[in-house]
């Protein structure tokens, strides 16, 4: 199946809504699924246009990505009515510390409700406008965001006897500290 022509849709969007900050990011893989990088201030406007004018009524997938300088959320949108897609929307936060707020698209596509909660839980992106933003996969009192690349898990494992590389290192440190404590 051939990839969906997102460039022409983006041109249509820009002609109808001048002034929105949307950039096309090319995807070099053979899947040719190019994405739209949307500034967070224009996200709701762009998303409403896609939902109401272009007929993209089905948000299939919401993903969080942890890049070295910022966090990103990626939406895959399809149109059930017109059998088109995917349109890939991306939004980036300003940094990975305090400024991690992004507008929530869950009031537009209800399928984002649980998936945005998962992105919040595992990455720490705070979605403004989501009515029930709390942890979903980890328990409520959990501290930390496990999918981030700099997440350090607490030392509460039992190590297997065939450990390798970094796990073997951790097992040695654990045995040393536990042996010393006992």
């Amino acid at each position, binding site marked *: 199946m051939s990839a969906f022509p997102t460039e022409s849709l983006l041109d249509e969007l820009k002609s109808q809504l001048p002034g929105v900050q949307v950039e096309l990011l090319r995807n070099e893989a053979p899947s040719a699924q190019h994405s739209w990088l949307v500034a967070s201030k224009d996200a709701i406007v762009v998303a409403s246009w896609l939902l109401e004018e272009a007929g993209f009524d*089905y948000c*299939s997938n919401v993903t969080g*990505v942890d890049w070295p300088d910022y966090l990103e959320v990626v939406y895959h949108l399809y149109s059930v009515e017109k059998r088109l897609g995917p349109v890939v929307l991306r939004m980036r936060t300003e940094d990975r510390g305090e400024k991690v707020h992004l507008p929530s698209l869950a*009031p537009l596509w209800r399928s*984002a409700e649980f998936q945005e909660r998962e992105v919040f839980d595992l990455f720490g992106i705070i979605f403004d406008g989501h009515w*029930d933003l709390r*942890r979903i*996969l980890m328990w409520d009192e959990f501290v930390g965001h496990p*999918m981030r690349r700099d997440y350090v898990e607490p030392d509460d494992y039992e190590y297997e006897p065939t450990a390798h590389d970094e796990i073997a290192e951790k097992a040695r440190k654990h045995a040393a500290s536990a042996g010393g404590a006992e």
Partner: protein
Amino acid sequence: MNSDLLHGVPADTITRREVSYDHEGETLEVSMGPHHPSTHGVFRMDVKLEGERIVRLKPVLGYLHRNHEKLGEKSTYLGSIPYTDRLDYFCSMTNNWAYCIAVEQLAAFEVPERAQYLRVILAELTRLQNHASAVGFLVQDMGASGTPLMYAFRQREKILDLFEALSGSRMMCNYMRFGGCRVDLPAGWLDQLKVLMNGFPAFLDEFEKLLVSNEILMARTQGIGEVSAKIAINAGITGPMLRAAGVNYDLRKVDGYGIYPRFDFKVPLGEHGDVYDRYMVRVLEMRESVKILNQAIAQLPEGPILDPKAKLRGFRPKAGESYGRIEAPKGELGFYLISDGSPNPYRYRIRPPSFVNLTVLEDMCLGANIADAVIILGSVDIVLGEVDR
């Protein structure tokens, strides 16, 4: 866009029911699960009841969370395939296929003809055994004490024997590879499959005779757990649950992945989107799967089963990303991969159908009795391995 929120949830995404929220002192809060025989896994629902009627229902997930996505970042692309078996553990072949489609889009592998046919045959067998189990479990939850479930399982065992003869394992098949399939059919497998397919319509007839006009089943499922088409599409529901609401969206027809456009089959649609429609859609889909299987067996060509360019070890796709999706028996299963040119994916994301289908669980259950909550959950057909990953 609606900014009208009813108790925190957008108003026009709730199916209208008679619920009262003002009886604080007279409600009973019950936690259904995680250790519960009817929640299809370790799944918890915090239910607030007024008598027998549900006033609030909050699903609590995460009891089977194994952080598969982070494991995917540490494993190689090949090493993640056995882990995909364990997502929706009933349907390991379709999980493998969805992942292989996502990787094949990243690396432009071409799957040979025989492998395409084998993939379709195994995916439809998976669909058959999944729907048989789903219907069996649904009826079991209604109180049928296991008889229809055991009939379904008796037939399912024959399909699992086929999987074991081909891939070595009944459920954790680890069979598909990037660019084709791992191993070719052993001697006698195709004959065993033909015998099974000849006997399958008789099994489906008997199964239907047992259940379809059963008055208890109809009384307990018709009108329960209705979801309208508009809400279903907006809430991202896919699979038999969406088609029961009347929306003709089956990825085998829409995307036409693999070689599905060559087969002649219909897509059963429901009308009301209630539990009865979902149950009937699954029963009818089993018949369509048998049709596809008969056509695929007749057309199966000889030839190689793996793309000669495909590399087993040391596979490094070029940098890029891809989202590959298939019509798994539970809904749309998608894999989103971001590659940075190294042997491990940079981001490995699974879009689970059961997880997104659970979004409207509260809406469907509000105002219904607690016994109906069990049936509604059964008709959503979740598998916790997929919901929690």
